[in-house]
């Protein structure tokens, strides 16, 4: 009797792991997406600056998606990690403490993750509103601190005189942004792969479970608090890497990295792209940058009005409805890809389980 159950269990475990492996497989469409992303290096040589900003924004949005889309934490304070790491990487470069950009980048991510770990205990208490206030409060506090110690950070004028050493001692960050863009894109890809690995792991599944129903998740033995702390820390690290990228590629860092607008825009990016699947932040960043570029060309001063209008309309239409549109669009693209490549569709699987 017990032998049978054990055998059944083994079979079940094998089934589950086979299913998980199949789900985590890279689909042709995903591969095509990244091939296209890297092809932009050669396709749009005159657009490097905006492409670079898009890549950084995409990484930043990815970090928010990890906590909002996968763990259900509303945050208005991702800018705290972005800004902290931005200043950190700027300062270590300015004073020549760490010269190699990649090492500085990793350390910036670690510093931001450390802040994320410390503040996660504040964030995990209370209701949505309390979370909003605490996350926002942390980033505003950091902004005040950066303003206070203007002898170190440059205050309202921004951190100047940052001299970023060439990558590997060979590739300079030139004015046209070619190397900067390639650098950002590679970092984005590496971070994406890590995030993808996290999301498809059993750890990622447990996050989805506790987003769906915290109480039940706790009842089946998921340590809710520590899972949230962990993902918040990871997300902070990613946001930090995005901030450090911005400082390194522009050789400048100003107080607005901590601003509320940055966090609010980030929410918009993620909402445009859709939460809860990793490509949401990436696609959202591309659409947002195009939109911003287009509107800013039409009305340079008042583009904020139209961004606000987009937000209001999105909410009034209803995100569920929009998500069902994007889902059907996605299904269409997947179907098309499947027909062309005659392989089983799987980008739908990149949005595990749907909402």
């Amino acid at each position, binding site marked *: 009797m017990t032998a049978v159950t054990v055998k059944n269990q083994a079979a079940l475990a094998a089934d589950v792991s086979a299913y998980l492996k199949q789900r985590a497989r890279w689909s042709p469409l995903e591969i095509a997406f990244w091939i296209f992303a890297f092809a932009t290096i050669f396709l749009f040589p005159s657009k490097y600056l905006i492409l670079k900003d898009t890549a950084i924004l995409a990484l930043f949005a990815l970090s928010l998606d990890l906590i*909002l889309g996968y763990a259900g934490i*509303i945050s*208005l304070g991702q800018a705290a990690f972005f800004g902290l790491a931005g200043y950190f990487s700027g300062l270590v470069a300015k004073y020549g403490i760490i010269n190699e950009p990649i090492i500085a980048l990793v350390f910036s991510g670690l510093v931001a993750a450390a802040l994320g770990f410390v503040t996660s205990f*504040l964030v995990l*208490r*209370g*209701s*949505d*509103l*309390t979370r*909003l*206030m*605490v996350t*926002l*409060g*942390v980033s*505003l*506090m950091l902004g*005040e*601190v950066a*303003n*206070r110690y203007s002898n170190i950070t440059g205050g309202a004028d921004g951190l100047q005189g940052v001299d970023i050493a060439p990558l590997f001692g060979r590739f300079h960050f030139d004015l046209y942004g070619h190397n900067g863009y390639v650098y950002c894109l590679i970092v984005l890809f590496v971070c994406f792969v890590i995030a993808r690995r996290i999301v498809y792991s059993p750890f990622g599944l447990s996050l989805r479970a506790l987003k769906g129903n915290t109480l039940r998740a706790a009842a089946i033995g998921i340590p809710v608090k520590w899972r949230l702390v962990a993902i918040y820390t990871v997300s902070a690290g990613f946001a930090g890497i995005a901030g450090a990228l911005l400082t390194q590629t522009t050789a400048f860092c100003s107080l607005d990295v901590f601003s*509320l*607008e940055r966090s*609010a825009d980030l*929410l*918009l990016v993620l*909402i445009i792209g859709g939460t809860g699947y990793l490509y949401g932040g990436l696609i959202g960043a591309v659409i947002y940058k195009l939109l911003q570029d287009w509107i800013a060309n039409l009305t340079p*001063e*008042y*583009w*904020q*009005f139209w*961004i*606000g*209008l*987009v*937000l*209001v309309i*999105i*909410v*009034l239409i209803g*995100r569920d409805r929009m998500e069902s549109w994007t889902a059907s669009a996605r299904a269409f693209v997947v179907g098309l890809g499947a027909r062309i490549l005659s392989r089983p569709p799987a980008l739908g699987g990149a949005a595990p389980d749907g909402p």
Partner: protein
Amino acid sequence: MLTILFDGVAYGMLLFVLACGLSVTLGLMNFINLAHGAFAMAGGYCTVILVNRVGIPFALGLPIAFLVTAIIGWVFERTLYRHVYARSHLDQVLFTIGLVFMSVAAIDYVMGSSQQFVQIPQALQGQFEVFGVGMGKYRLLIIVVCGLLTVGLQLILAKTRFGSRLRAAVDDQRVARGLGINVGAVFAVTFAFGSGLAGLGGALGAEILGLDPTFPLKYMIYFLIVVTVGGTSSITGPFLASLLLGVADVAGKYYVPKLGAFVIYAIMIAVLIWRPQGLFARSVAR
């Protein structure tokens, strides 16, 4: 020292008038309205236009500002806000932030981005001394007006039929509905009244807080602090929180000017860690 206290109290009173509408909407509908400051800004600009351009006396400008903002609030509530009550908090945040962005850009477009000043009558300017404590006349006026408003609000809430309906709806919306209270109508009136108060606060505070298109963004966090720290279950909670915040902010800016608003953010986070439901919340049920 006492002057700081006095200024802090005036500032706190002002914050209370600005934020009490928000605390009711949050408590009643569990609705996170980040655009509350936009109504305050509307009141401020309304007074600027009326007093500076049309030439209406300041004392008359204030009630008109209240009325105009209340009407704007009512229209927005009936047309836009009520579709969003049942949505998730994320949707509410997105929606109201969108409104804030729009109002900032729209005011910038219509009125320009420079700071506006309301022309205050000569009689209200200057200072006088009581027992060696310097008091600004205008700040004294603010304390008097806001104090009267607070007492009035408290009386309305505690003594009138509307007040008891409102309290019932805040405490338990479903039961209140079951008792035949038209919660939607109560809420619309409250929302309009709260917006009107915010407009009045914006008009009164234009002198102290400064009025420019970024007003809703700059003070949003202050209103939210008042509400989260004070709790949403009563009117005294936000009132005490406003006074605390006002005094702490003025004292902080006076004694440690370089740290700016750091002090109040630190206080807020400390309070929220200590009591996530607010300092003066009665229950943790909601």
